[in-house]
């Protein structure tokens, strides 16, 4: 609580300064009221000692009253509401100031050194530091009141701006890296601040002597030097600079904290689900509201689908429930096909087969996907009343993002009576479509931030923290193999081909190591059996192969993946 209070007073004082300085009409009432409510705790604290919790409670209530009086909704916690008010008022102040800031800066600058001199005198009078440090028991900041206040003010605009561009990054220190424009404005602000502060100084010294610190003076001394460095304010996005800063050196830092250091290095799937269960989201009501809000768009979607557009849903959170709701409410009477793009073993062939076999009741096989698409488009053209809806969860899924697959889907989407609803999740998903494909798809982008868990979508992903169960899926197979060298891939492909040749042979026990070594040597993939053994160990680590001792004591190698998956895998590899 005490900690909370320290912060509030800081904000309050800052607000005082601003309101005094500004003498505007907009913030008058708020400012006055605030001064009343905030002066009281500060005064009390200056006189009273620590440990007086009643006083703190009082202060809190006062603040709440204040927030209510201001008219902001106080559903949030006090602190948040408070800091937000402070932040916003500071921000508006800064905006007002900006108009004539440049004109001011020069004249203010000229006077700045004088003011700092008067500041640097003040450290002589610092009476009550011991009590202050004793008060802050949470130990968040031992810095004296005054310095904190000044720092906060000077950094706020910078921080705000940073938060807008880079939400993840917040640097409390007034760094040298800050863009030049913010420096200039800070400068301006600080100078006005100082001017104002000097006025306040004697008043406060009389009322409650504060402790200006070295930090403050240092910060103030720094400013003129900084100013001289930057001549003109240039708008430059700081994210870019941060990228180059981060990638500037080629040094790679790795941590030696590995998963093995943990007590239970790997959970199995059941444990994970059990752990995740019983943790309902604390915003489930709001999420439901969002979901209902998006459901209102369904009629629009239907209209747009009819008009020849394809609906693409993007945003944070799983969109599966939303699309499922859409399907149930609007498409239950129509012919529709749901494709789970996140499913790791999905292929273009399976989608097309589902369309031809299930939707059109066509028996027989096609030689190539192109033939199949031609058949689909011909069938749909012949019967214009037939409307087929295609719902693709995760059209950017690992197996669907290939060039050929997207081409085929684009051809399907461009058919007038085949309608497509899809969702994307990958951050680079728009890279999949070039101009031509976009014109085929004719997307309408709908932002639907659902905040729902990717429960089903991520269930197939192999995480480091979770033990794998069962056979490898096609996507994880390709994923693992792509990180290997071409030679290793060749070795594995050799084994896969041999296994596929023998898949109809029930007595096939695997390829013996010697035989495998001979084949690899002939293909110029390994130069000694030691290399092959190391390679095989790697495969074994990734669970790509399994070895078995035969009756004659010879090792036999087997790929523990289904034959169909292996066929798909070989097709994919050759397609690349």
């Amino acid at each position: 609580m005490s900690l909370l209070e320290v912060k509030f007073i800081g904000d309050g004082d800052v607000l005082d300064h601003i309101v005094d300085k500004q003498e505007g009409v907009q913030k008058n009432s708020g400012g006055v009221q605030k001064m009343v409510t905030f002066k009281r705790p500060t005064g009390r604290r200056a006189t009273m000692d620590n440990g007086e919790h009643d006083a703190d409670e009082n202060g809190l209530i006062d603040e709440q009253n204040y927030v209510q009086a201001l008219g902001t909704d106080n559903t949030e916690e006090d602190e948040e509401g408070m800091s937000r008010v402070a932040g916003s008022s500071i921000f508006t102040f800064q905006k007002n100031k900006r108009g004539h800031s440049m004109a001011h800066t020069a004249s203010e600058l000229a006077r700045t050194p004088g003011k700092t001199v008067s500041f640097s005198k003040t450290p002589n009078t610092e009476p009550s530091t011991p009590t202050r440090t004793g008060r802050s028991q949470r130990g968040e900041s031992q810095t004296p009141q005054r310095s904190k206040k000044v720092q906060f003010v000077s950094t706020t605009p910078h921080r705000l701006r940073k938060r807008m561009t880079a939400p993840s990054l917040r640097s409390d220190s007034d760094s040298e890296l800050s863009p030049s424009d913010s420096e200039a404005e800070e400068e301006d602000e600080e100078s006005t601040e100082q001017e104002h502060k000097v006025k306040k100084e004697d008043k406060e010294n009389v009322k409650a002597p504060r402790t200006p610190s070295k930090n403050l003076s240092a910060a103030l001394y720094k400013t003129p030097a900084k100013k001289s460095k930057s001549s003109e304010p240039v708008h430059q996005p700081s994210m870019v600079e941060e990228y180059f800063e981060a990638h500037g050196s080629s040094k790679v830092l790795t941590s030696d904290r590995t998963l093995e250091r943990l007590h239970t290095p790997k959970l199995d799937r059941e444990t994970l689900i059990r752990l995740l269960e019983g943790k309902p989201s604390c915003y489930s009501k709001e999420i439901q509201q969002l979901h209902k809000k998006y459901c209102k768009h369904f009629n629009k979607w239907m209209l747009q689908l009819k008009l020849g557009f394809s609906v693409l849903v993007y945003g944070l959170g799983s969109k599966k429930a939303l699309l499922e709701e859409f399907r149930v409410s609007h498409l239950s009477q129509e012919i529709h096909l749901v494709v789970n793009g996140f499913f790791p073993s999905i292929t273009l062939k399976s989608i097309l087969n589902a369309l031809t076999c299930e939707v059109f009741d066509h028996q027989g096989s096609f030689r190539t996907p192109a033939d199949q698409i031609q058949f689909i488009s011909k069938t749909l053209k012949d019967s214009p009343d037939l409307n087929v809806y295609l719902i693709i969860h995760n059209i950017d899924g690992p197996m669907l993002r290939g060039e050929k697959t997207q081409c085929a889907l684009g051809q399907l989407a461009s058919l007038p009576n085949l309608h497509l609803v899809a969702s994307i999740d990958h951050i680079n998903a728009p890279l999949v479509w070039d101009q031509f494909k976009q014109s085929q798809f004719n997307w309408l982008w709908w932002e639907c931030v659902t905040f729902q868990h990717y429960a089903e979508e991520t269930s197939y992903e192999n995480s480091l923290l979770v033990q794998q169960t069962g056979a490898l899926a096609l996507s994880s197979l390709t994923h693992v193999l792509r990180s290997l060298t071409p030679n290793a891939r060749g070795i594995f492909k050799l084994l896969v081909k041999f296994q596929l040749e023998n898949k109809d042979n029930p007595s096939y026990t695997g390829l013996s190591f010697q035989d495998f070594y001979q084949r690899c040597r002939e293909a110029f993939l390994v130069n000694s059996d030691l290399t092959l053994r190391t390679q095989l160990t790697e495969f074994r680590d990734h669970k790509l192969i399994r070895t078995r001792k035969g009756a004659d004591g010879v090792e036999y190698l087997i790929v523990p993946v289904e034959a169909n998956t292996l066929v798909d895998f070989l097709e994919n590899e050759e397609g690349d």
Partner: protein
Amino acid sequence: MIARLQQTGYEEDRLQRVAKLLPCRELQAGTLLSIMGQPQQYSYPSVFIYGHRASGKSHVMHILLKELELPHATVSCVECVSVALLFEQVLLSFFGCDAASLLPRSPSLSDFVRIYRQQCLEMPAKQTRYVVMEKAELLRDMDANLLPAILRLQELVEDNVTVIFLSEIVWDKFRPNTGCFEPLLLHFPDYSKGELQQILSQDKHPSYSAEFYSSYINILLGVFYSVCRDLRELRHLAALNFSKFCEPLAEGKVKESDTHKLWRNIEPHLKKAMQTVYLREVSSLQWEQMQQVEEKETGPLRGLSAHTHVELPYYSKFLLIAAYLASYNPARTDKRFFLKHHGKIKKTNFLKKNEKTSNHLLGPKPFPLDRLLAIFYSVVDSRVAPTASIFSQISSLVTLQLLTQVSHDDQLDAPKYKCAVSMDFICAISRTVNFDIVKYLYDFL
């Protein structure tokens, strides 16, 4: 000369006609004839003829087989995208359509051999049959068993058949891993300058004397011989430029014997032809039209390569510029170009040795997507949101082959690209958006 072309079993006047049709190739034709032997004799199973482009391989074979009326099948391996076409063509020319229709839908080698032997029983060879395989280097890309089988076709079908391979590639590149029946190798050397002169002078213009045309060929060879020894190319150039050569004659300014004046007239014209029509910048038709329209000079017409200007959207231009910078600048210099306060970085100290050599000589280097975007945001003056349109413009640049995607494995997670445009192109693009790209290129500091 004609004495070399002697082989019993053939009529004398035919051999003379052949000799006339094969200038400067009497020696090779004579060798071939002696290999072939008399019509009814068994010849060597396979002959491999190699030599440079336009050294008369196909021509000699064609003339010999046609003039001496020997049964033959000429197969161009470029046309035969599948073995079925190859087999069909051979059967068609030896036994007629009935035999060719016997082939199943996707015939194997054994089908071919079986049908060949069937047909062979009905109409056995009275003379040696010849199968000529043009562009035989493409046989290597077909089934592995095809080339060894064709090499010993005589043995397989038990017929008097000889296969002749024509190729520009030496035999060593053909030999299969498991070995094969070695064919007889025959080399066709290049034509010398004198031989070229002799052959080219043969097709003289009817309205001018032979000496006049020969002197024209002499001038033409003097200009073009250093860059081109291809007979077909030279013949094409000679035909194109002859009307220009004759112009002063038609106007009556000079006489036929005044070679020096004629040379002075044609020489700059031929030089210009080397830069334009020889490189196919200007089509032959355009060139002829230009010669007819006298006042129009040949320079102003822009060739194909001058049309390198491509209209692109605004952000695509900047994306391409950023890609070029990312491809040709080392990643370690990014701080220096795109950070305001990068501190002091000296050019020599912080670079690795191989980076000090010109990056433009080594070619473009791959870069990841995030580096492209970071440079893009720092070169574009305004703030750009990373919308779907920006991303699809990147993909579109890949489709337009202005960028190339390296390492095809992950399209979304961390795609890598290379810039595939030239310095001139990017300079023209950056001029249109008022961006000084040379200032940002590490090589030109």
